């Protein structure tokens, strides 16, 4: 596999991590990270759907007319989610029960529709599969990281197994909704700090690929307006000086 292909995968895991950098898929992230097992289930299910839907949408990209592309994507994504749901219900019933309604809600996970719209419809099948794999792994890693913090510190256990010395120092609020937001915020801050130190990821370097609003926005980067305004300000200043 050449560097370009590897880069597609790594982009999803690190530099454009859908949860910690692009802040997409927040609902399942907050809801399913109370335990490591449910986070693992959600991460794997979403990754499978991402890979399959990216592959299918990429393969159909020349057939699907632009006017009905969103309904077509939704039908394809919903189909794959239903397949995963049925398989999980049949072969992993305990995990299926644990995930509840959030399994079906993968259909409206904006990471999946976002990647379909921004990547799969413009790229060949193999690249789209790699993009789905990278984004899925990025989602899975972020979920596992957050679930580990919440379960170990909040519940004194890991994947349902009790950690004896943690029982007396656990912080129960971390397993509740406020704890979810708190850990989520801290992880985003840590991620920003790490990437800032390495100088690898800066907000300016983002493309619009991961943004579900890109089609409506029409800009080429999130900083475009600021830069234009700043330039206009400088020009005005120059004019005044002159």
């Amino acid at each position, binding site marked *: 596999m050449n560097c370009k292909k590897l880069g597609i995968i790594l982009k999803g895991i690190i530099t454009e991590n859908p949860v910690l950098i692009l802040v997409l898929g927040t609902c399942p992230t907050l*809801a399913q990270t109370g335990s490591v097992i449910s986070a693992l289930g959600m991460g794997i299910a979403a990754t499978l759907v991402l890979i399959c839907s990216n592959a299918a949408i990429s393969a*159909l990209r020349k*057939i*699907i*007319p632009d*006017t*009905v592309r969103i*309904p*077509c994507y939704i*039908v*394809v994504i*919903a*189909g794959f989610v*239903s*397949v995963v749901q*049925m*398989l999980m*219900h*049949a*072969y992993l*019933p305990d995990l299926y*029960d644990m995930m*509840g*309604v*959030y399994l*079906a809600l993968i259909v409206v996970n904006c990471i999946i529709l976002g990647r379909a719209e921004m990547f799969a419809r413009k790229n060949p099948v193999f690249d789209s599969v790699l993009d789905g794999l990278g984004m899925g792994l990025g989602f899975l890693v972020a979920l596992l990281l957050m679930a580990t913090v919440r379960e170990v510190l909040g519940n004194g256990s890991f994947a349902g197994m009790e950690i004896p010395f943690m029982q007396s120092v656990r912080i129960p609020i971390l397993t509740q909704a406020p704890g979810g937001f708190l850990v989520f915020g801290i992880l985003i801050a840590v991620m920003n700090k790490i990437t800032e130190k390495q100088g690898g990821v800066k907000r300016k370097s983002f493309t619009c690929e991961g943004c579900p609003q890109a089609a409506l926005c029409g800009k080429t980067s999130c900083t475009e307006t600021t830069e234009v305004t700043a330039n206009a300000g400088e020009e005005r200043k120059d004019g005044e000086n002159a």
Partner: protein
Amino acid sequence: MTKKNLMPTVVLGIICIAVAAVLALVNGFTAPIIETATVARQQASLKEVLPAATEFEKLELDSLPETVFEVYRDKGGSGYALLLSTSSQYTSGDNMGITVAVNPDGEITGIKLTTYTESKDFGKAAYPASYIGENAEEVAVHHTTAGVTYSSKALRGALSDALKALADNNLLNGGNN
């Protein structure tokens, strides 16, 4: 209709048909597995809610409420176990599956949620267990749980239906059983 308008409709229609075919195929081999697992889980729950039971006998009763789909009697006489299925207006996945045990005096002696797929957990064990020891009158005025009002109301309604079904069929003490 012009070709320009027809094409999107045809493509969307074909994709829908293809997806439906794939779903039918997967459902074809997963549905029997799911059904078998569900029945096994329900049968295991009968023993869980009525541990004193020696052997269960399925009763064929007339005019059961919609929420009560199977009624079993312990041949040893310790009581009845009923399989219930209900939903609230916000149920988005499977119905709520409940197995409840009732003694011959009409009091709930055991309860277990076999299926619960709502997003909000109302204490899958704790809230249902709060009905243990209650009869029909007490169940009718049992408290609901804040934040999960519709689900707890649905659960309460199903339990009331279960006790009513036993009473209507004269299976409780005081009836003509």
